[in-house]
């Protein structure tokens, strides 16, 4: 879909000769040209998350001459980030991600203004942060923030350039309620916690966010420059109303059509959401009223029970390749994907402890068994094998 530039003409300033030299390869494109580069200079883009997707987003938007770049992240750089979050380096470990990212983009382009928000985006700050920007690029890594970014963008009338990744697979689109569907039109509600594994559990190919993040960066640039093009150039098409699916392992791109849902609770004809809500509640991260909680056991408590010779079944629900990274001694392996059909293998007369990497999927396994009618006592190893490695057996690697 072609859209005019989201940057109004009255904000455009002249380019200096130094800027003309720096951006000459853009100026030579009739689709960008001097006019488009002036719009980039005037543009204010907010990148939410400076991780795998935010890294290429921020790097390319800075290089492209986006005048004001906002960076939001509450997190700190960790060693396990560096396989894909190329905006951060080894010496940045333990630094706030926004500080590390700001340094890097400033070194690429000292002329741009970088505004950092070393905080989590929440219902109580999202509108006041986002309202200062022309477009938001969503590089977040969790459902509550995705719904928050979506709703805030709809309420403020801003485009939301979306990208999401898992293992080898990526999704990208532009959600812009003025012109097409929003994130909620596609996904009215999130999966229950634990149903879909995260990248922290399922892994992600390091270059995948690089590819998806650069797709987002090019969509941001087209919204700013105006995908209608200037100087009689052939118009470009925005990803508004289209969902791009990318599979890096099969090396295939596919495209699906998205339509606005007239019954959408936030962008539909009679919206029921008129202000930001509690997104953790919405995403089921707080227990719903009446929901039976899953009983948990800490790594130290489990160790004590094992040492005391208590009868216990320890069930490792991780995938085989994951067990190979950090095998749990004495556990029986029943991968989550086979739990429903192998429920009969678990003895209801003996306490069973379920474990995974971080203690989320194991919770899901317990709920699945209960739904299947299992009546025995089912315990969840709190914080998973990571807690065991941290609190009981330091020879076990943390991954």
């Amino acid at each position, binding site marked *: 879909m072609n859209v005019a530039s989201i940057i109004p003409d009255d904000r455009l300033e002249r380019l200096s000769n130094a800027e003309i030299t720096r951006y000459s390869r853009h100026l030579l494109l009739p689709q960008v040209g001097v006019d488009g580069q002036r719009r980039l200079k005037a543009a204010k883009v907010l990148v939410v998350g400076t991780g*795998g*997707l935010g890294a290429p987003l921020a790097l390319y938007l800075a290089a492209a001459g986006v005048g004001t770049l906002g960076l939001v992240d*509450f*997190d*700190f750089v960790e060693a396990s980030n560096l396989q894909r979050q190329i905006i951060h380096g080894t010496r940045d470990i333990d630094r*706030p991600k926004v500080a590390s990212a700001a340094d890097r983009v400033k070194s690429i382009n000292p002329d741009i203004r970088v505004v950092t*928000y*070393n*905080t*989590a985006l*929440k219902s*109580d*700050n999202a*509108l*006041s*942060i986002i309202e200062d920007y022309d477009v938001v690029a969503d590089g977040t*890594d*969790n*459902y509550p923030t*995705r719904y928050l970014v979506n709703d805030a963008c709809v*309420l*403020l009338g801003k485009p939301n350039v979306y990208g*999401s*990744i*898992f*293992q*080898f697979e990526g*999704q990208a689109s532009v959600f812009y309620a003025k012109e097409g569907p929003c994130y909620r039109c*596609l*996904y009215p*509600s*999130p*999966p229950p*916690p*634990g*149903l*879909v*594994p*995260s*990248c*922290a*559990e399922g892994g*992600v190919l390091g270059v995948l966010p690089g590819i998806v993040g650069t797709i987002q960066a090019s969509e941001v640039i087209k919204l700013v420059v105006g995908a209608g093009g200037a100087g009689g150039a052939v118009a470009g098409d925005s990803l508004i109303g289209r969902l791009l*699916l990318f*599979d890096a392992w099969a090396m295939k791109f*596919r*495209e*699906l*059509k*998205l*339509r606005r*849902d007239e019954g959408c609770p936030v962008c539909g004809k009679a919206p029921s959401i008129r*202000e930001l809500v509690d997104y953790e509640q919405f995403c089921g*991260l707080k227990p719903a009223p009446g929901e039976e909680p899953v009983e948990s056991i800490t790594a130290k408590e489990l160790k004590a029970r094992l040492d005391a010779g208590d009868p216990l079944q320890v069930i490792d629900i991780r995938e085989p390749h994951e067990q190979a990274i950090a095998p749990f001694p004495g556990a029986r392996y029943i991968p989550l994907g086979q*739990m*429903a059909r192998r429920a009969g293998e678990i003895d209801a007369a003996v306490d069973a402890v379920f474990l995974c990497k971080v203690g*989320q*999927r194991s919770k899901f396994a317990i709920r*699945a068994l209960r*739904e299947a009618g299992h009546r025995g006592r089912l315990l969840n190893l709190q914080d998973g094998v990571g807690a065991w490695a941290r609190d009981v057996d330091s020879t076990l690697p943390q991954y």
Partner: protein
Amino acid sequence: MAKVFIPTALRAFADGKAQVEVGGATAGEVVAALAELYPDIRRHIYDAEGKLRSYVNVFVGEEDIRNFGGLGAPVPPDGEVTLVPAIAGGVAGALRAAPRQTDGIVRSKAAGRKR
């Protein structure tokens, strides 16, 4: 036979398959045939009432079945059915705790402000 594309997030519940061929003249029949073939995938696609989960989208060709009669949407004999679940990225299921510390560079405006 319809070709069903299984997204990465659901492949663990379908013996690792990226695509399978199953029979069915409607989206509902094709998805049901998939769930028959791989029982472990069932609870990821259907909720407790047997309705399609709202975070799993089903497309026939390029089109979302919601716009073509839902599970009754027709699937041509050699049609392609794609399951598109929500994927979010990194964090393990739950949000991590609040920031460990702030270093004084927080520049967000006053919290709680309404638009």
